[in-house]
């Protein structure tokens, strides 16, 4: 059995490798941020490398590695989906070079205070344009591959739609807005419509592809679910942006529309969990690598808990009035990003990287350690941030105690967070090491019963 059908799928390997290195860097900077909270640093150090710079690095590395994962993943699944090689391998490498070059320049720039000063969208305007160029090359490459393909599938269009939507929204974060409320209005067009819109579409497509390939479940069934899921993701997610508009000086109806639509947001995720579970049960092929399954099921459940339930809990306006902008948001942010997108990327990596090395069944002992340490570690971290957040909300917003006093009580919890973060880092290092040095298993893999669906 051929593991990869098209040579051009190999371009994704470098996307994955760089993404994994950036992931480790992101976690290290996260640990540094927790030290800032947990201890009092000397003024001289704060002047040179302030919290704001470290946070800009932590969040931008997150966006960078996840986007690299999505782009690499798209390049990996596109050729078999289209039954042809990528339109251009050279363009794919050029785009990677521009993207990584821009990211490195941005990181160095942050250290010297070169910033646009907008959280998560800190990179300065000239670099923004380079990112736009890279995104255009990416979309052109994907679109040309699809247009030139002999076969037409729903998944192709869903992927192209998702990545175009993603790139389009980025443009709204680039201008300078004079009015702060308008600034934040469009800031969320990038951030919210990414994570609760475009990224969900890409996720749903990639998960659908992997499930189809591994289980051998009929394409028609998988694509039907894909339509319903993405339809619901976008239906709830677009107006759901409103849950960020409660306190920015916007009309009253956002409370209702934002509240109701974001309360519905867990629905498509529940559907995704059910869908994944059904396909696993109805699979026609034997399980070759259980670890890939750990990641797919883990992704579905963690996505539901971290993004769905945790998000649901504090987007209702009467609750959000107290929890908005507190450590509870931090707890939700960590669980949601890890549950929905870090695990998705790791699922792609575990699906694609062994195949790119020609390994059908791999040794997964280390990988399982990595899986359990990171998933449990992040869950505990989410709880610790949650406790800090409940303390902060109660002291600051209910008892009306000053900000600093409320934060003093959190120092202990951030020391705990630092400890848990170290464990999490160990898990990440184990996972990345395992992915980089993956080896074939001595036990031969069982033969698949049916051909992977995309060959049809």
């Amino acid at each position, binding site marked *: 059995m051929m593991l990869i059908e098209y040579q051009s799928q190999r371009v994704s390997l470098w996307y994955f490798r760089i993404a994994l290195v950036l992931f480790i860097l992101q976690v290290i900077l996260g640990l540094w941020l927790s030290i*800032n909270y947990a201890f*009092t*640093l*000397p*003024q001289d150090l*704060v*002047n040179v490398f*302030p*919290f*704001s710079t470290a*946070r800009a690095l932590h969040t931008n590395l997150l966006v960078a590695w996840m986007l690299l994962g999505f782009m690499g993943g798209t390049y990996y699944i596109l050729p078999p989906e289209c039954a042809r090689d990528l339109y251009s391998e050279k363009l794919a490498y050029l785009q990677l070079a521009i993207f990584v070059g821009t990211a490195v320049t941005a990181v160095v720039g942050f250290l010297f*205070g070169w*910033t*646009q*000063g*907008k*959280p998560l969208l*800190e990179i300065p305007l000239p670099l923004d344009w380079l990112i736009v160029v890279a995104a255009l090359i990416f979309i052109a490459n994907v679109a040309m591959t699809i247009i030139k393909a002999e076969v037409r599938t729903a998944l192709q269009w869903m992927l192209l739609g998702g990545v175009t939507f993603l790139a389009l929204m980025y443009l709204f974060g680039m201008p*300078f807005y004079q*009015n*702060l*409320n*308008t600034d*934040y*209005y469009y*800031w969320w067009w990038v951030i919210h419509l990414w994570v609760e819109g475009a990224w969900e579409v890409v996720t749903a497509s990639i998960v659908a592809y992997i499930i189809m390939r591994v289980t051998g479940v009929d394409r028609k069934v998988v*694509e*039907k679910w894909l*339509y*319903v899921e*993405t*339809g*619901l993701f*976008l*239906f*709830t997610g*677009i*107006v759901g*942006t409103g849950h*960020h*508009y*409660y*306190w*920015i*000086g*916007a*009309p009253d*109806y*956002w409370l209702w529309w934002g509240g109701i*639509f974001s309360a519905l947001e867990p629905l498509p995720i529940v559907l995704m969990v059910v869908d994944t579970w059904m396909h696993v049960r109805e699979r026609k092929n034997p399980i070759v690598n259980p670890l890939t399954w750990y990641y797919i099921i883990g992704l579905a459940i963690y996505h539901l808990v971290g993004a769905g339930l945790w998000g649901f809990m504090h987007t209702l306006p009467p609750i959000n*009035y*107290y929890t*908005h*902008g*507190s450590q509870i948001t931090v707890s939700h942010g960590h669980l949601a990003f890890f549950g929905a997108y870090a695990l998705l990327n790791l699922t792609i990596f575990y699906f694609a990287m062994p195949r790119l090395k020609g390994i059908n069944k791999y040794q997964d002992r280390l990988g399982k350690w990595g899986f359990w340490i990171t998933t449990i570690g992040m869950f505990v971290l989410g709880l610790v941030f949650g406790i800090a957040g409940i303390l902060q909300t109660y002291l600051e*917003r209910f008892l*009306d105690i000053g*900000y600093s006093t409320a934060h*003093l009580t959190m*120092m202990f919890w951030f020391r705990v967070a630092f400890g848990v973060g170290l464990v999490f880092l160990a898990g990440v290092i184990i996972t990345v090491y395992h992915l980089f040095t993956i080896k074939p298993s001595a036990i031969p893999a069982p033969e698949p019963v049916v051909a992977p669906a995309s060959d049809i």
Partner: protein
Amino acid sequence: MTGKTARLIFWVGTLTSAAIFLWQTYDFHMQTPKFTHTDKLNEQVVAGKKVWHKYNCNDCHTILGFGGYYAPDMTKAFYRLGENNIASIVQHPDVMYKNSFRKMPQLGVSETETRQLVSFLRWVGEIENRKWPPQDEKFVEAYKLRESQPQKLDKVHLVLQACGGCHTFENQGRNVGGDLTTIANRITYDRQTLINYMINPQSVRPGVTMPPQDVSPQTAGIIADFLLSLKSNKEVSK
């Protein structure tokens, strides 16, 4: 469910939501002048917003609840801290947070930039955002009360408004510059020297870290009387 139904769910769901959202966006722009008083959004305020971005304030501080969670929310900071305190903190964070467990970097913000930043924060404070954040509402109310009834100003209130950003008094205020009761018992200044000291500290005590206070001589007079009264009370009680 057929494939056709599934596609219908996708298109109806996505397009309805997008249509509602775009209409709301249009309406948001129509109503923004009312909620944010765009008539007061002048060049000084816009320059202040640029300063806010330039020093990446938003990656430690939240504003309107968004940004870094490392430092306090700045939405109503103008009411909470007042102009002078904001200026002192921005320009001398190392002095203001000398005893604090949490540090703010010395960013080298210029005098002009500080004034622009204050204008920006003043304008932001006026955004009508349903009284958020809840813990700052008392500062907003107190500020508005002081503004509407200057004749009813209580002396303690006035002193805390002017000096409470650095000094404590009866366990209120921020303890950077010391307790006013202790200071009152230590100083040897007469009324006029105290007034001069408040308006230009360097002219009375060169090298002192206290920044000049933007108070009128009348207000400084009331504060001076108040401080001196603290002193005499103590002496009588001895």
